[in-house]
């Protein structure tokens, strides 16, 4: 079983829709949760970073963490064609002075104009 499971998609939505992206994890040691966006032929770009359970909002993006259920979500409001990309969840535990990220497999999102 993978440590991080991510809904594979692909996901296609009309412009202006609300998008929900999700990941579940099995390792209860994970404490840091991130969402990265990756455009084609580019490296992952950090979108959101959370530490505790609850919601964190940044513009049109809201990250939600539920540690009791080992479930994280990213919501995108008023989606735009420029949001079309692959979205990766990533998480890490505190391991002394090292912090390797464990990624989900990514969800490919297309926002249609």
């Amino acid at each position: 079983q993978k440590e991080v499971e991510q809904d594979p998609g692909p996901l296609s939505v009309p412009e202006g829709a609300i998008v929900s992206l999700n990941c579940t994890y099995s390792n209860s040691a994970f404490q840091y949760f991130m969402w990265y966006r990756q455009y084609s032929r580019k490296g992952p770009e950090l979108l959101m970073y959370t530490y505790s359970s609850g919601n964190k909002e940044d513009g049109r993006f809201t990250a939600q963490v539920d540690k009791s259920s080992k479930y994280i979500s990213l919501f995108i409001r008023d989606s735009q064609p420029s949001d079309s990309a692959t979205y990766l969840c990533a998480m890490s535990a505190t391991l002394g002075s090292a912090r390797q990220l464990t990624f989900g497999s990514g969800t490919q999102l297309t926002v249609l104009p």
Partner: protein
Amino acid sequence: EAGVTQFPSHSVIEKGQTVTLRCDPISGHDNLYWYRRVMGKEIKFLLHFVKESKQDESGMPNNRFLAERTGGTYSTLKVQPAELEDSGVYFCASSQEVRETQYFGPGTRLLVL
């Protein structure tokens, strides 16, 4: 501020040959990470440098892979000899402090024929 840069962007080699990938982290970032994504799989951690020291190399697949970071600046990842299963995208990331955001480079696309 320049981001993480990687060279080359693409490399096509034959099985048994040697390839060296280079990563230049963001200036001042002591932490440097290597990750890779093989076809159809999620991004996986390879290793973590703090300055010139290997902090965590638990993700290195075997002894055909050798990473160095002389002087604590740029890093190289050598694959010798390359095998077909080494094909994929190799990402480098850097962070100022270990608990801070990891910024990713665009990746090197390696194809072993």
